[in-house]
């Protein structure tokens, strides 16, 4: 280019530099890649909106036919014309809460252990073991749950628990649908906890590793104990990452289907009054009853259940984003 046109073209930017450097070569690589990448991004966005649209359209007969009654009626009995999602919603909530209560403290402690307290080699080995736990198909968890956890709970743990004073606490005291405690919300929660644990641990461990060494050394230098450094420096630094990890685990626990279907007892017509009662979750209810949904209303009602689950997960994602943004503001914008 002549000096005159360079002057008129304005200040040189990175694209101009690239243009100058690649003069004479075909410069289509960048634009083509940008177009392809944008198409891929659009595919994902369109699929997401398309899925939501399909869910709403296909469940419309049920939304108009059953209406708000679906969220207030307990029993799911299509053969009697009753479409109540409340039992499934309560079961989903209870099993997820149990899973998170077990998994989150355990995962945090394991992550802290791996990053701060053990020899790096041990940390690597245990870390690999936990990542392999994440790779196990969920149906294996269901099988192990059915063949190991269920008989153990039914024969040993639950009878013992009911003999202690804890057995009278509301929430543990067996309700009307109690069936021995083996196939119950508690079992489902325990198995879900083990499915969710590896994700939370792995992400927490990575986030905790990113805490700058300098900050921790400053803490030790001022005389803090290990526990004080862990709590006030590492965890606070890794806060938003850990919250993100917890929400990933929560998403998996909410949507887990086959593992839960084996061990939660599949009781569709009574609310679980305690953790030891059997129940059902939205995902396992759909899995169990979809193949014989005969009438249009049956199918639409099941799709509406799927839509409800989808909206719950979406709501949690939005909550996570709001919380993370608030945490970022208070801790100074560390992503």
């Amino acid at each position, binding site marked *: 280019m002549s000096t005159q046109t360079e002057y*008129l*073209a*304005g200040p040189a930017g990175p*694209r101009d530099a690239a243009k100058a450097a690649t003069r004479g070569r075909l410069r289509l690589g960048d634009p083509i890649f*940008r*177009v392809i990448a*944008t*198409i891929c991004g*659009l*595919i994902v966005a*369109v699929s997401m909106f398309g899925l939501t649209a399909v869910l709403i359209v296909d469940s419309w007969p049920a939304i108009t036919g059953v209406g708000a009654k679906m969220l207030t009626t307990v*029993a799911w*009995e*299509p*053969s*009697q014309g009753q479409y109540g999602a409340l039992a499934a919603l309560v079961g989903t909530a209870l099993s997820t809460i149990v899973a998170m209560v077990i998994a989150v403290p355990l995962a945090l402690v394991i992550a802290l252990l791996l990053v701060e307290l053990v020899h790096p080699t041990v940390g690597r080995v245990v870390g690999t073991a936990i990542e392999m736990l994440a790779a196990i198909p969920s149906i294996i968890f269901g099988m192990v749950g*059915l*063949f190991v956890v*269920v*008989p153990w709970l*039914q*024969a040993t743990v639950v009878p013992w628990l009911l003999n202690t004073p804890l057995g009278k606490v509301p929430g543990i005291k067996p309700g009307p*649908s109690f*069936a*021995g405690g*083996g*196939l119950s919300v508690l079992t489902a929660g325990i198995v879900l906890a083990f499915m969710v644990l590896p994700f939370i641990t792995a992400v927490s461990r990575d986030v905790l590793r990113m805490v700058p060494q300098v900050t921790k050394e400053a803490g030790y230098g001022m005389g803090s104990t290990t526990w004080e450094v862990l709590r006030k420096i590492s965890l606070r630094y890794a806060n938003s990452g850990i919250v993100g990890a917890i929400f990933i685990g929560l998403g998996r626990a909410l949507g887990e289907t086959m593992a839960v*279907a*084996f061990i939660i*007892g*599949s*009781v*569709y*017509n009574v609310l679980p009054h305690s953790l030891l009662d*059997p129940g059902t979750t939205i995902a396992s209810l759909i899995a*169990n*009853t979809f*193949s*014989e*949904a*005969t009438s249009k209303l049956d199918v639409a009602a099941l799709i509406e259940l799927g839509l409800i689950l989808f909206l719950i997960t979406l709501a949690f994602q939005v909550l996570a984003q709001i919380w993370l943004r608030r945490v970022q503001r208070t801790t100074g914008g560390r992503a």
Partner: protein
Amino acid sequence: MKKPASSWRLLLVAAVALALIAMALGVAACGGSGSSGGSTSSSMADTAVGAGATFPYPLYSKWGSDYAATGAGKINYQGIGSGGGISAVTNGTVDFGGSDAPLSADDLSTAGLVQWPQCVGGVVPVVNISGITDGQLKLNADVLAKIYNGQITTWNDAAITALNPGVNLPSTKISVVHRSDSSGTTWIFTNYLQAAAPGVWKAGADKTVSWPVGVGGKGNDGVAASVKQLSGSIGYVEYAYAKQSSMVTVQMQNKDGVYVKPSLETFASAASQADWKGSLPSMYLVLVNQPGKDTWPITGASFILMQKNQGDAGRAQAALAFFDWAFKNGATSAQSLDYVPIPKSVYSLIQKDVWKDITVSGTPVWQQ
């Protein structure tokens, strides 16, 4: 001044490209699926695909492998529950459906299906009680109904010990297991409770009922697995599942008041009472609670359903050829698994009167 590259323009180009690709794919897909799924059969036989009840699954699976060994053709059967089988064959997603709960004549004509019994089997209650061995515990319809109602809650309840003098029953709570999916086995079981204990059993007789108590297992195999894992539990499964998993079965009191064990003989005694000729053309028949001192009271037939109007003659022919083979050559395999085969007098009736309604463009598929 050179205009800066506009990201909106980039987005527009990408969106147009995406729309073009989507249209091209849409046209290709519509064009491809314009011709319906089946093609006219070549000299090689088609594979007939079926789905439905888990009740006859062990038998159809054995027949399927024996039939494939003869080289005459193949079938593929999936156990998804009777309800699933009925919907699948009504929607045309499978060539034949299996169901232990037959459709009434009205439902058959609304759905455009025909049905016939392919085998007869027994539903047996199975228990998991410490100290109780196979065939030791005696129950009758009244007690069974009360257990499934939640009115009897422990194994050493007076009603159960009265039927079992000398048997040491523990005080374990009874864990009731039923089916979580739509099941023909449930249909047979609840029909029995309703027929034999009408004063007690109020939840009705259907493929799914509103169970007063209990947990659900998916499929006969799910119920069997749950009963095996829960101590103090009771469930109901088709006999082949109980036998294959060496589960503890019970003796039931039949209509004549005799306590019988589940076996091929007791099922056959029930099956022999069936008036199949009188049930034509829908072949709807309930076999529970039949008279006879050797009769197993919870017996039922498992039915095959097929569409009247078939789209693909090859697949329909393949299915009917398999069932013809099963009727003529499958009796020994059936008996080895404790299913009662359909006798010749009945299956000739089926082939003559029922199969003639399976047509392709008006011509019957099955040529005698």
